[in-house]
């Protein structure tokens, strides 16, 4: 999900809702590449911080439920969760991304790696999202395909799609949404991107899910008509999705 290539791999073979396409990705390889790219953008202090943080997260993953009781209010978060919260100030990029490389925030990658290393379960993901800043919430969304929590992350995606924060909306329409949102929710997610100006290139599995979707085509034409009636331009992205939605197996829609 963190590069276009991976996105295609993750979603390429599937077209329907409620598939398990995100389970088919080589999670270990994807995360190893993510960590390598991240380390290359950090200075020594940042890399050492990341190494320690991932060790703490792995330790937390190894602990049994009895060893990690619910923390009392008023106490600090668990050590690895403190790392998760503070990744922004400890994982600032020391150098720019290579040309054509992943230039997204380094803290996003650090937090995704931490969530995976801690073997965050569905309840943990929901709690960290609910208690998170916008940046932390974005990381939970980006991590969903790697956590192996089945459909349990769908409410998180739905929450993000209700916001108008484009950084959350863009993170919500990744491969997890492509694999797990039902047709109605997924169509509205695409429309939300067009409304809020999130480039549809952020929508994972766009071609596979949009192709031949007559209902999506209708929604897009109605939206285009509304904009035209108001004297406003129709975004190029709308035509791009409409071309897909109006294509086979419903050529009469085109």
């Amino acid at each position, binding site marked *: 999900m963190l590069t276009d290539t991976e996105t295609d791999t993750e979603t390429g073979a599937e077209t329907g809702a409620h598939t398990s396409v995100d389970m088919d990705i080589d999670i270990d390889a994807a995360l190893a590449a993510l960590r390598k790219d991240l380390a290359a953008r950090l200075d020594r202090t940042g890399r050492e911080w990341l190494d320690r943080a991932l060790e703490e997260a792995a330790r937390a993953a190894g602990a049994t439920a009895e060893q990690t009781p619910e923390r009392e*209010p*008023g*106490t*600090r*978060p668990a050590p690895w969760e*403190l790392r998760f*919260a*503070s*990744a*922004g*100030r400890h994982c*600032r990029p020391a150098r720019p991304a290579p040309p054509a490389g992943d230039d997204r925030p380094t*803290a996003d990658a650090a937090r995704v790696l931490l969530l995976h290393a801690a073997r965050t379960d569905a309840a943990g993901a929901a709690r960290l999202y609910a*208690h998170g*800043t*916008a*940046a932390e*919430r974005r990381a939970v969304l980006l991590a969903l395909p790697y956590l192996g929590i089945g459909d349990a992350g769908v409410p998180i995606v739905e929450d993000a799609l209700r*916001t*108008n*924060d*484009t*950084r959350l909306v*863009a993170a919500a329409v990744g491969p997890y949404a492509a694999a797990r949102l039902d047709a109605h929710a997924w169509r509205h997610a695409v429309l*939300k991107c067009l*409304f*809020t*100006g*999130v*480039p549809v290139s952020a929508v994972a599995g766009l071609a596979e899910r949009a192709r031949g979707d007559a209902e999506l085509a209708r929604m897009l034409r109605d939206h285009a008509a509304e904009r035209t009636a108001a004297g*406003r331009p129709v975004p190029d992205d709308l035509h791009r999705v409409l071309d897909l939605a109006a294509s086979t197996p419903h050529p009469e829609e085109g």
Partner: protein
Amino acid sequence: MRIFDPHVHMTSRTTDDYEAMYAAGVRAVVEPSFWLGQPRTSPESFFDYFDSLLGWEPFRAAQYGIAHHCTIALNPKEANDPRCVPVLDALPRYLVKDGVVAVGEIGYDSMTPAEDTALAAQLQLAADHDLPALVHTPHRDKLAGLLRTLDVVRESALPAERVLLDHLNETTARAAKDAGCWLGFSVYPDTKMDEDRMVAILKEYGPEKVLVDSAADWGRSDPLKTRKVGDAMLAAGFDEDDVDRVLWRNPVAFYGTGGRLDLDVEKPGATHEGNSVLRGGS
């Protein structure tokens, strides 16, 4: 003129304000958590507000090219309501967040025992989290309130040089300065300080450790007062370096002590209709 407004309640302001502030030179703001005019009745109401200060409001600010940070605390007024006091127990999970640059606003409103307890507890939280504290000085019985605040600061684990005393005026500035705190002045249309009095204060005390804010909120206030003070300083003979020190370098130095200030603001690429907050409809 680059401006850092170290105290402004942007939640209560419009996108027109953000636009005008950017045009006036404002590139960074700190939004202290405070009461909302309408009293809250449960901790959950605070949590949604804190989440907004760490989510939606920085997003709004970034659309206008302004870096947004916040301070988190149980404010003195609502510290008197037992229904709200449990907020104190949840503060540790907020005080570790990247966008939180201080504990605040804390301090006194009516100088009650409940306010004593909340102030002392939150100064300790600031020390525990390696954060400075933004301390509001009371509107009523101000000098007595300031002196009592200084007593509590002296008894706390937080050094005076990590405390910003705000809403100061001619009657309270000397004691605040002698205590070694940072001096904050809120410039308002009718109450608190005005531009000319602010210039007189700067002439008397110099620009060291002085911060000027608009403290703009849902009441009669003006988020461009920082710029107006900068202009008044230049007109009164201060040079641009003095203005930059008061309106930029001092707040950067104070709020930067926790290592969390990040002044690189990246405008979200996506806006609806080019200039409005994204409503996702109509």
